[in-house]
């Protein structure tokens, strides 16, 4: 019980702050909805990049899998959005389990590029091969077909906001739990020194596979939420060009941290919103910011904030140990 409290304290506080923000700035609700959904997507990428150290240029594919699973279900088969979401999660799981073993054997940029290739092939499948089902570039429209679900009517934007926030809270708590668990530690250990992990008797292949599948599931969930939120999908959601967005958001927020993805998304979407009001080109600002983060603040927004907070308010014992270490390094 104590452990559950410990894990959910931070996420609950964050979600409370988001709720406050929603009522302080009522006209920013669409932005906050996108923030919550995109954060889940970035969390998926954070498992790959931040924890396991694998760069993927094909994350939009996994987003598209989730979005189209929900969309095809809602447009052709059923009417219940929750079933669509479950279907998306299942598709994410299946895709991760199938593609994982083939991809994670590869290192470095081959992993990144095979994901880009998968993304391009996936988009081609959606656009051309499954044309009768997905209607290609026109996109699928199914807003009118969505039925009411118990408790909240998620067809209304302000109700969907609560729904998305609840999902975000659950995912964040589980994510925090993963970070503190042995799994999170093994992810980080693989990133630091994989051969040592192997020497200690861990099956690093399996751990990577789990990480890859988790990332795929989270992206699919996010895609499904996008699909329900917009009420329509088109292939531009899964364009290979958009792979940069999620990577940049992960970097800015702080790779390998629990709340990094949220703050990275906040910064990324905020910059995109703000900058496009003035000069309409977000690439320049985002590129410069990324370089700055890479060379000066390698821990990202949340990573640096966390470090400062630990310095100021952390446990005394930790501080003294840290001081000892820095003193030792200085001399």
């Amino acid at each position: 019980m104590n452990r559950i409290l410990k894990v959910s304290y931070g996420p609950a506080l964050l979600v409370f702050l988001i709720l406050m923000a929603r009522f302080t700035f009522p006209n920013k609700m669409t932005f906050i909805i996108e923030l919550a959904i995109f954060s889940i997507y970035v969390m998926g990428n954070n498992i790959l990049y931040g924890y396991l150290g694998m760069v993927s240029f094909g994350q939009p594919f996994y987003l598209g899998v989730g979005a189209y699973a929900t969309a095809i279900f809602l447009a052709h088969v059923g009417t219940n959005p929750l079933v669509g979401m479950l279907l998306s999660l299942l598709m994410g799981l299946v895709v991760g389990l199938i593609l994982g073993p083939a991809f994670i054997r590869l290192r470095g940029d081959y992993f990144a590029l095979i994901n880009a290739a998968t993304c391009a092939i996936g988009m081609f499948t959606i656009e051309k091969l499954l044309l009768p089902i997905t209607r290609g570039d026109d996109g699928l429209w199914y807003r009118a077909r969505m039925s009411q679900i118990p408790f909240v009517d998620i067809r209304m934007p302000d109700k969907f906001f609560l729904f998305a926030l609840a999902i975000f809270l659950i995912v964040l708590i589980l994510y925090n739990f993963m970070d503190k668990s042995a799994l999170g530690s093994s992810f980080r250990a693989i990133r630091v020194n994989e051969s040592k992990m192997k020497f200690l008797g861990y099956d690093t292949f399996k751990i990577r596979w789990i990480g890859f599948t988790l990332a795929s599931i989270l992206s699919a969930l996010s895609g499904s939420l996008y699909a329900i939120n917009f009420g329509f999908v088109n292939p531009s959601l899964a364009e290979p060009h958009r792979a940069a967005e999620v990577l940049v958001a992960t970097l800015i927020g702080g790779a390998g941290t629990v709340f990094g993805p949220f703050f990275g998304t906040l910064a990324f979407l905020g910059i995109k919103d703000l900058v496009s009001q003035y000069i309409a080109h977000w690439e320049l600002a985002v590129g410069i910011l990324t370089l700055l983060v890479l060379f000066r603040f390698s821990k990202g927004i949340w990573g640096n904030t966390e470090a400062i907070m630990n310095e100021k308010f952390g446990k005394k014992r930790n501080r003294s140990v840290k001081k000892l270490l820095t003193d030792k390094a200085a001399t």
Partner: protein
Amino acid sequence: MNIDLLLPAIFFGLSVSGILFLVSLGISIGFGLMRIINMEQMVYYTFGAYMAYTMVSATGSFLLGIIAGILVAAFLGFLVETQLLRRVYGKELMFTMVVTFSVFLIGIGIIQYTWGLDPKPVSSPFHTMIPILGVQMPLYRLFIIAIAFVVYVLIQLMLNKTIIGKAIRAGIENPDQVQGLGINIRRIFTVTFVVASGLAGLGGSLNAPLTMTGPYMGFDMLLFAFITVILGGLGSIKGTLVSALIMGQVISVGGTIWSPLAFVAPFIVMFCVILWRPTGLFGVTGKAFGFQE
């Protein structure tokens, strides 16, 4: 598919190969020599195309456009290499990948800021058609093939006959030993990088009349260039040429059979190559890359 369509497709494919070769050379050498992944190579390509557009619309001379494209691209390459990339040599490959990718984003931002978002058309300098084997071929496509061939010969001559070329080749084998011989490897890096980015600019200005010149033109080319480099084997110039020839045919003939294939067929090739033969056709074997186990 009838044979009347196949022959033009093969010739078109050759011109596509020419562009691909010019553009992907920088990525291949960048990995072979400097051990970095050059994602920002396509910035020079895009700048080359935009210089061609600017010069053609300002003066009407396409030759001037090509020269300006090469010079601007080479200068940008010099700037990026000396100011930024020096700091990332010897770091993790993933780090270089992300750094050069953000340079790429900045380049796109600058292009959008200078030239705007809408695509710019560049008219082809020659409209003559030349009959070859009973097929009417645009002279411009033949011109591209010829230039790519000349560039290949020049590069081979430079690598095999000049001291600096020999130093580059030795650097691909073992940079530390080259440095031990008293050769300033940093200067070699700069020279190579400037040449490679100039070639990318050349590729861009040559490709401008064939495609729409837009800020995002580098993105599609980036993926195609990477496919070319991986198929040929990272760090091998001969491999890059051979795989550019193959990729050109895949794009062109594939597109003739069924037009959507022009976009997706290269990715299917890449998918298969990475899964079955990650070292590429002429790549260096060993644990340089790809598989470690």
